[in-house]
């Protein structure tokens, strides 16, 4: 495991982050504190139902916390003026089940996040082609998802996550639906992209071998972080 860049500026800061469902009957996050620095590769590990995906939802502004504070680059995410614009420009999502749109080709799927940008139509296509080449799929650009293998679909999803050059990649079990060989190739690709573009990567996984490649690992259990392999420095001035 590589050392965490502790001196880097925090991308995310969480203090007492809580998320409850069904009027408090389900407590997915029970007061979580963490700090993620720019350019870090964080693995979030833990058993099913421990709150890993809920945490990812908070980071991606897909849902709101019930209590606590979550900041993105120093600004409270509760006060984001436009969460959709935040997701479109700052965040790239990679899902376990790929979530490609079945009626669109690979190159069209990659263009989907670009609709919310100022990029012209031809620019979108060129960018999508460039990204598909970068993930080694230049020969499959006009194939529909149903005609692609699992590994190829996840490559398309990775290209899609990079469409708007986000600064943060959020990956939810990105190799969970792949065989071991494809899982290794996909993980290599994600790590390479993260390093080359100096992105912050938060990757949720069950697999300790994958977590071992991260700069830090947050171990979760019952909605709490029970250990961090390299603790973040103390959080100060966060309200």
């Amino acid at each position, binding site marked *: 495991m590589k050392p965490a860049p502790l001196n880097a500026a925090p991308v995310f800061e969480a203090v007492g982050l809580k998320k409850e469902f069904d009027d408090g009957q389900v407590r997915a996050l029970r007061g979580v504190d963490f700090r993620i620095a720019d350019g870090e590769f964080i693995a979030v590990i833990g058993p099913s139902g421990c709150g890993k995906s809920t945490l*990812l939802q908070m980071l991606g502004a*897909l849902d709101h916390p019930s209590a606590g504070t979550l900041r993105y680059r120093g600004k409270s995410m509760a006060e984001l003026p436009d969460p959709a614009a935040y997701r*479109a420009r700052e965040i790239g*999502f990679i*899902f376990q089940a790929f*979530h490609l*749109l079945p009626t*669109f080709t690979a190159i069209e799927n990659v263009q989907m996040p670009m609709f*919310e940008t100022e990029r012209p139509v031809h620019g979108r296509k060129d960018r999508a082609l460039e990204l598909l080449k970068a993930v080694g799929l230049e020969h499959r650009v006009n194939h529909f998802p149903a005609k692609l293998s699992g590994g190829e679909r996840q490559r398309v999803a990775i290209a899609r996550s990079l469409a708007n050059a986000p600064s943060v990649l959020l990956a939810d079990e990105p190799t969970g639906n792949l065989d071991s060989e494809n899982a290794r190739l996909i993980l290599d690709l994600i790590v390479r992209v993260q390093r080359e573009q100096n992105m912050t990567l938060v990757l949720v996984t069950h697999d300790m071998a994958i977590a071992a490649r991260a700069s830090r690992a947050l171990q979760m259990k019952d909605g709490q972080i029970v250990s961090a392999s390299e603790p973040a420095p103390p959080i100060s001035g966060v309200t």
Partner: protein
Amino acid sequence: MTFSTVIVRGLMRRPVRTGLTLVGISIGIAAVVALVGISRGFQKSWEKGLKARGTDLVVSNMGSALTPKPFAESVRDQVAKLPHVAATCTLLVELTSIESSQMMILSSREWGGFAWENLKLVSGRMPRDAKEPAVVLGQTAADVLKKKVGDPIQIETSELTVVGIVNGGALVEDGSAIMSLPVLQELAGEQGKVNAIDVRCTPGTSEEQMHKLCEQMNALVPEARAMIASENLSNSQGYRIVKAMSWGTSLLAVLVGVLGVMNTMLMTVFERTHEICVLLALGWKRGRIVRMVLCESALLGFLGGVAGVAIGIAGVKVLQNTPAIRGLLEPDLSLGLFLVSVVIAVVVGVVSGLYPAWRSSRLTPSAALQG
């Protein structure tokens, strides 16, 4: 890839369902085109017939039936005395079945009246006198009845002779069997009765003077009502009922189309819930999702509208050649009617898409991580 590609691809996702929805909405629009086109066409044709006869005013009692109620022929003498009245011509008109035609206009005119002037002989001759049991057929009527000069023709219980074929200058005239007034009065048992008086005004009579003349006539003749020729049919209660029924039937058909499109779009939203959540997670704004659903339903409406116009035109052409009503239809299939129909279809599409669009806007992007 443009946003329109996304819209089209959304509809192509379930081609059979989209096709069936298009059929539903297009039938509704076809009903609008056909029924409204036919009723408007009938009105125009009627007005054209009056114009061809040179009629300025019509005195008749257009009650709830399509043909006016008979009244005493002597009313004409009172009307003729009024100022600005240049000429009058009494008529007895019926809608009846004649041999193979289940519905035909039987138009009898005062012998020597101006209503005979517009009839141009194509073959044969005009009746020799007011009492001759003879008929002249408009060209369309002759075609429908397959009659030529010299053929016998069965009207009511009597057999008359076709003595001429005429061009009347309007479908209403061309589709009629025309005879002298006393002959039809005798056949129909309506001696001394007429159901319309065509009035020609003196040259230079203004529309305002015509309206005043109508008021004078109405005061003088309570059993009938005078109207400017162009307003005659539209004021008929029977025609109004037909017109209301044609719009009512059309709107009912359109309502079925609305429900069809709404059902399809709701199904689309339900089926694509997860995809919509993924798009939200990828940064699509809710407004874009709403626009996507509304544009899809509007496109569905537009395509249904265009197909409906085509089906409506085809349907009317088929109706025109149906033996029972051949020669009676001169539908007003104008570009304006087509445009209105397509606009109705697009509005139907948008309205039908409002609820599904609202449903789609309520979805949360977090569901994207749950699939």
